[in-house]
């Protein structure tokens, strides 16, 4: 499969402290590529390095054989609590904020881009909430607004950092279903950091599992195994498949 990006001997971290080093893997185009691992293993730092928020300590992220500067459009969905709710923006304004960043000398947004923001909100099922205050929305709605903001950019890569961490199970499932359907319909590549191993087992096509400087990467069926998860988390874990469904549970409960 044609890779969208390649991490070449990548070291990531903050300041001079590396949290993960020597990472070398490709993210195939159009896949649902999930990153898992225990707290503090560097998942979020890796995602932020790939999308350009954090500079690599060593190595590089190469985009489809092009130089790093020619990276494709990236739609980034942060954890919800990284957005300050003091800003009295409506949902539509939050989506519009990322648009037209390349039009430096335009203080207002062209109509075509403004329409794109509205249609992105409709795609995530919030067409009726365009005028609602962002801080007045529920957690699930806010997360969908952030997904809409990323989609409005018409990205090749949708990068999400624990998008369901603050959502109830129903809202989380609906959001992940939405992302999966968008990936299939719009042929997006999805890069997602998650702690929800069952969700990863059901939806990922590829997985990068990392911990303490070690990592394994590959198709989900080969990577997300009971043995590997047990080694990764230092606790017995089991991948249970039953009636076509898959779940990851602590081994004692399997």
């Amino acid at each position, binding site marked *: 499969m044609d890779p969208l990006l390649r991490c070449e001997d990548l070291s990531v971290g903050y300041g001079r402290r590396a949290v993960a080093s020597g990472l070398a893997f490709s993210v195939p185009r159009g896949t649902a590529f999930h990153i898992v691992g225990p707290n503090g293993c560097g998942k979020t730092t890796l995602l932020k390095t790939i999308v*350009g928020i954090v500079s690599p300590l060593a190595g590089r992220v190469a985009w489809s054989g092009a130089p790093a500067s020619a990276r494709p459009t990236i739609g*980034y969905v942060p954890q919800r609590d990284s957005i300050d709710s003091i800003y*009295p923006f409506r949902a539509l304004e939050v989506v519009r*904020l990322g648009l037209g960043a390349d039009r430096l*000398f335009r203080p207002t947004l062209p109509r075509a881009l403004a329409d794109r923001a509205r249609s992105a909100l409709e795609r995530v099922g919030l067409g009726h909430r365009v005028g609602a205050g962002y801080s007045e929305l529920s957690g699930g709605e806010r997360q969908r607004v952030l997904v809409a903001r990323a989609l409005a950019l018409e990205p090749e890569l949708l990068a999400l950092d624990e998008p369901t961490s603050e959502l109830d199970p129903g809202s989380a499932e609906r959001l992940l279903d939405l992302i999966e359907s968008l990936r299939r319909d719009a042929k997006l590549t999805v890069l997602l950091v998650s702690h929800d191993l069952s969700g990863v087992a059901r939806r990922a096509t590829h997985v990068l599992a990392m911990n303490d400087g070690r990592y394994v990467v590959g198709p989900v069926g080969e990577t997300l195994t009971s043995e590997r998860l047990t080694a990764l988390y230092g606790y017995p874990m089991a991948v249970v498949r039953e009636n076509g469904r898959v779940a990851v549970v602590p081994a004692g409960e399997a």
Partner: protein
Amino acid sequence: MIAPPQEEGLLGSLATTLELFLDSFLATLVLATVLAFLGVHVVLRRVVFVGVALAEMASLGIAAAFFAERFAITAPGRPLAFARDHWVMGALMNLVGLAFLLRAERRYLSRESRIAICFTAAGALAVLLVAGSAHGMDEIQVLMTGDPLFVSHQDLNVLFAVMTPAVLLLVVFFRRFLLVAFDPELALTLGVRVRAWEALFYLLLGTAIAMSIHLAGMLFAIGFLVLPAAGALSIARRPWSIFGIAAAIGLGSATAGFLVSHERDWPLGPTTVAVAVLAFLVPQVWRRVSAAVRR
């Protein structure tokens, strides 16, 4: 204070006052409007105390300029003549303050601690610098409450020369400044050079504060940085309207303050700030009363 001339009607005396103090009036309007516009960013970014610390640093710069007047090496035409220029020294000290305040947080020194250190150090040094002069207390009062009434034509020209490009930058790059402030991570993913835009914003803020302290005092600078923005945020719900209403509150408060100061013979700086306080309070009271009536 603006004393209304005797034996004239109110309009006649106002016209005379405006004629005499047109430069002061225009400077007050420009400063109030620019500070109000910048203030929306300051309030939304939750960096009000950075603004206050910068105001104190600008005061230190002006106190240093007063202090420099004692030395012949700073006389006009000498190499260090700039040291007597109030707003240049204010701007310089603001740059020093920004370099200290905006450094990355360290485990042992948070942003709040830096602000407090900056504020107290600048305040204490400013008092010490002017304490030895014959007019020490007068100079302290000028720094604190200021008086935009005595703005000279040259001051006004400098103000326009500096503020016109600043306002143009803020308006033309409105969306960019908003993006960088609201979600710097998103901006980075879009390839925006966030640090450069942040540096530009704080440079504009520091310059506006330094000029305001020099021409109108700390009370005016802090008051117009916070009050119009807070008022606008309580009544507006869209980005452009928040900034527009804040600027309008700043402009309106400065104009009304000038009129009240003229009519009541009150000091201009504190009067304009008092009017801005009223402009902030009125919508709050209105909202509460209308909510109570609806219940």
